[in-house]
């Protein structure tokens, strides 16, 4: 009984004194830059981006000059808010937000600490900006993982010239994927093809939706979709026996179930983001004027094994994905 009462008293005390302590947060070691990294979920591409980001900063500033606090939201957007709260109350020097919900949470948490996003496809959509012109402004900038969608649409036609119907397979939980397939759909329709959307909910109904897509379409396109990336085996097992080629938005997906991709490297993307962080921290660059940066090179790649299985001759200029 006494314990419970004292516990409650402690809680009330904490509540009351929180406000008093708001400005006394700068008690950190001054020589080192504190960088918080909020990553949405454990995932090959996102992990690579985080690694690239840290490597760039270590390369430029040295290992002793920075302290990283890497936190993972476990795919749960609400956890990202808790992490964002942590970074802001620790008053870190810079926050890197990896993937869209992470960026949104961090952006809601602070208007002062510089925020760099990465693996975010469209900043205008992610932050609901009305007249987005490539620079977010305020305390936010970053890099986008948007591979040129017009080139991807053209690639579908190049690889499967006699295709009439294209199935666009994506997870309806992912706003990024939806954005990509809608753009690709428009591009394909402009070129006179029929494009059908095949949204699935999760790995449980992926197989059914993918079968429907493979039955009704001549070729399937998948964007940079996190759920697809985790379930490439399912798609491969359905599409290969049906001899339906898959064009992928990203190398990791293509390596298992695709025939070709215009690949961007998430490691390089993270590295580019890291260089932006260096400019802000060391050179005092003004983040509000920094435009969103994109992966500067895309590498056209093909999946040798799948091409052979489908009897497709790889186009020139494409290089084979390393077989592991």
């Amino acid at each position, binding site marked *: 009984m006494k314990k419970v009462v004292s516990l409650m008293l402690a809680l009330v005390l904490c509540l009351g004194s*929180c406000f008093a302590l708001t400005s006394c947060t700068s008690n950190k070691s001054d020589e080192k830059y504190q960088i918080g990294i909020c990553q949405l979920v454990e995932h090959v591409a996102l992990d690579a981006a985080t690694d690239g980001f840290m490597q760039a900063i270590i390369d430029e500033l040295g290992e002793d000059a920075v302290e990283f606090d890497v936190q993972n939201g*476990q795919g749960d957007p609400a956890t990202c808010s808790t992490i964002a*709260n*942590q970074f802001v109350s620790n008053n870190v020097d810079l926050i890197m937000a990896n993937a869209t*919900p992470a960026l949104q949470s961090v952006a809601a948490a602070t208007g002062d600490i510089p925020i760099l996003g990465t693996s975010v496809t469209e900043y205008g959509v992610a932050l609901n900006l*009305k007249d987005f012109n490539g620079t977010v402004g305020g305390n936010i900038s970053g890099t986008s993982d948007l591979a040129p969608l017009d080139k991807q649409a053209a690639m579908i036609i190049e690889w499967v010239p006699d295709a009439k119907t294209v199935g666009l397979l994506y997870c309806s939980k992912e706003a990024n994927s939806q954005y990509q397939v809608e753009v690709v759909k428009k591009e394909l329709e402009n070129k006179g093809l029929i494009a059908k959307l095949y949204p699935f*909910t999760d790995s449980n109904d992926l197989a059914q939706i993918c079968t429907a897509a493979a039955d009704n379409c001549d070729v399937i396109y998948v964007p940079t979709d996190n759920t697809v990336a985790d379930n490439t085996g399912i798609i491969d097992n359905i599409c290969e026996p049906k001899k339906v080629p898959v064009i992928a938005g990203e190398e990791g997906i293509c390596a298992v179930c695709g025939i070709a991709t215009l690949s961007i490297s998430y490691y390089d993307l993270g590295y580019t983001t890291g260089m932006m962080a260096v400019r802000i921290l060391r050179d005092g660059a003004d983040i509000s004027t920094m435009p969103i940066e994109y992966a500067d090179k895309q590498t056209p790649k093909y999946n040798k094994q799948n091409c052979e299985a489908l009897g497709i001759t790889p186009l020139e200029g494409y290089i084979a994905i390393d077989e592991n």
Partner: protein
Amino acid sequence: MEIFEQLFNALPGSISQGLIWGIMAIGVYITYRILDIADLTVDGSFATGGAVAVMLILNGCNLWLAMLAAFIAGILAGAVTGLLHTFMGIPPILAGILTQLSLYSINLKIMGKANQSVNVNQTDLLISLRWVKEFAFHNPLITVAIVLVILIAILYWFFGTEMGCAIRATGSNLNMSRAQGINTDFNKVLGIMLSNGLVAFSGAFLAQYQGFADVKMGQGSIVIGLAAVIIGEALLGKIFKNFALKLLSVAFGSIIYYIVIQTVITLGLDANLLKLLSAIIVAVFLAIPHWKRKYSEKYMRKSKGGKVNA
């Protein structure tokens, strides 16, 4: 020491998150404790509340009106579950799962996509994580605390009325209530509606707090709600006997849950273990009353030196 300071600085944020989820947990309390039904609709209606509020706010709707709309959307979701259960005779857990499933599609349709941002720089919001340390009305800590107290007051009044008593009676003894001429089906539906209304209301707060609504935001929320109910009961159940205080203890449970989560993140424990930890917290707090009972039975046996009167 540094850890304590970090934790302390992060406290306003975790308490406000706890308060927001506290409203949701009170919704869970109504179904789980009062009606004795495990209602899984909440995983869907939580996101519905967020989606409805965000879409209305983006279209220039008054903020409190948007909150009200979210509440009503939740009530409608609850009505579906209630009718599936009472009118169509589907077991309550299954009815909740069915509604939750259909709400996924509905939430996608409401927002038009999986994730809708509501940017605090561009849009006026009731609360935001941004303002968590400002001493002003839009501080989530203050706003949500006031709203929570008002809600508890209304619920306290409501469950004292004839209608509210009927809901409580339905939950505690179905057959007896029916024998007393209470329409138990109607009261079940009413309880589930009220519960989901509160859950959606809390979802509307959370969407503003974190700056976006997402179809995934309700996933697993039933676990957090149950955790809050159970932690609150385990810690404060002994001294909080009054109904209003019981509701308050649920909110405290939710705050404690979020302080624990924040501590885990501050200590830098492997975040991959977070879900396991959530499950362990719930399991431990579920076990505490059981152990307490066992211990006190033993103690009573010893002190009386004989059998306990049944």
